[in-house]
């Protein structure tokens, strides 16, 4: 299974992945319309500090505690991808409470949770953050 992995040493902290994630999940084709003047709420977040930068998004864990903990059956793991069904989610945030990476987030309106689905749920078809990372600090590949 291909997954997103982080090369911390190569991350410049440019936050471009956050914008590309928000754009990919906006449902819009015009980046300016999608992002300009808006508070973005990406599923990937870059942490910065003391010369260290790295991006964090869902690890699609092999034993996903968020799926196990979901009170609504809204989270599921299929073919190695952890998915959330926004129609079933009631926004209790038990998943936010248990994710050890802080990778599931309340949605903008706070009514449901949101998470990375590897862009399989939007028109990109492959992780848009990885595609546009300028320094290969995030990659989408098979690893042990």
């Amino acid at each position: 299974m291909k997954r997103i992995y982080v090369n911390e040493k190569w991350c410049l902290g440019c936050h471009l992945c956050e914008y590309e994630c928000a754009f990919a999940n906006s449902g819009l084709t015009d980046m300016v319309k999608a992002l300009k003047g808006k508070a973005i709420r990406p599923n990937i977040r870059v942490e910065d500090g003391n010369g260290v930068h790295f991006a964090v998004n869902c690890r699609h864990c092999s034993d996903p505690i968020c799926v196990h903990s979901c009170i609504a059956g809204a989270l599921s793991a299929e073919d190695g991808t952890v998915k959330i069904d926004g129609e079933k989610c009631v926004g209790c945030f038990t998943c936010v409470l248990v994710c050890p990476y802080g990778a599931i987030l309340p949605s903008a309106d706070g009514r449901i949770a949101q998470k990375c689905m590897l862009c399989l749920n939007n028109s990109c078809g492959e992780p848009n953050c990885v595609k546009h990372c300028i320094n290969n600090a995030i990659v989408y590949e098979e690893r042990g």
Partner: protein
Amino acid sequence: MEYVIIGNSTAAVAAAEAIRAKDAAGGITMISDEKHHTYGRPLISYYLLGRTDRERMKYRPSDFYAKNGIRTLFGVRAEKIDAADKKVCLSDGRKIAYDKLLVAAGSRPFVPPMEGIESVPCKFNFMTLDDALALEKVLSPEKRVLIVGAGLIGLKCLEGIAGRVKKVFVADMADRILPSILDGYGASLIQKKLERHGAEFFLSDSVQEFDGNTAHLKSGKVLEFDILVIAVGVRANVELVQDAGGKVGRGILTDDRQETSLKDVYAAGDCTESYDITTKTCRILALLPNAQFQGACAGTNMAGGEAHFANAVPMNAIGFFGSHVLTAGSYFGETYEEKKGDTYKKLFYSDNRLNGFILVDIPERAGIYTSLIRNRTPLDEVDFGSLKEEPALMAFSAQYRAEKLAKRV
């Protein structure tokens, strides 16, 4: 191999899934006195609130039983376990033989003796879908509701119905709402929010006597109501195991493989006790994630695998009218507090470990704190100073991050 599961909620479903993952051929029978397809039990308040519906609140897809080859015996009660003969006796007289049995029988409402309760014409519990459907039938804009109990169940009920009735009163003997998960300050923030939605609280108070639709409180106050909801507490359904000679305390006792003291009889979910690694005591942790972890562990062991559930901690995420309370662990040790506007953070730590936390309306990345509690992470291995202010992976070592972010987890 014949697997029998008493129950059809979280622990039962998790066990069935774990069994099927290891044993494609064995027979699985699920027995439940509820007739419904498995549903997210805590969703009953969201159902009344209109945030979900019967279809969407299914805990697993409609084809769950068929797909997993599960025989369902619903609408019938498991009344007795014959541990010597390895049979479960049902309320309709049938006996179901098992090789491995799981008791995931949950809990039931605790209704304390209350003077005059029999004179109240319209009263409900709030634990099952049937409870919610029955309550829904009597809701209307002119009704006044009295909820006895300001805990998790009572207040989720309040949220579910507040917009559908004229008035909701809540009475509780405790001096604050949600006493099991909040301290005084946290409780005051949420209480104010609930009051803004029309709730009226009578705390450090209780009903001395009911007289039809009138409640006389100990404080002398008199409340007129149309609907009574009793949400005082719950009791674990231990009797099946107890009567068969198995060890029970307040809940059914199991080892960390979820097996009871009866051979080939396992137990999981709200009917059991867990070993809470924060307090190092056995206690009932009637929480949905805990039920899932226990059920999955039981199922794996029932099917011949080897699983141990050894890091139970209390954890709770609960929302009210857009506010979110996230808590975990236990509240002892030194504290770190932040009060900003209507948000509140309190961390509890001692002996180089995080013991617990309360987060009101700052849910983001709370799981990083939870992981510190569940893993009993030594705090001198992380930058706890920065973690106090903000849960972030930056506070962990580069090696930890490489393990988690650059490898398969």
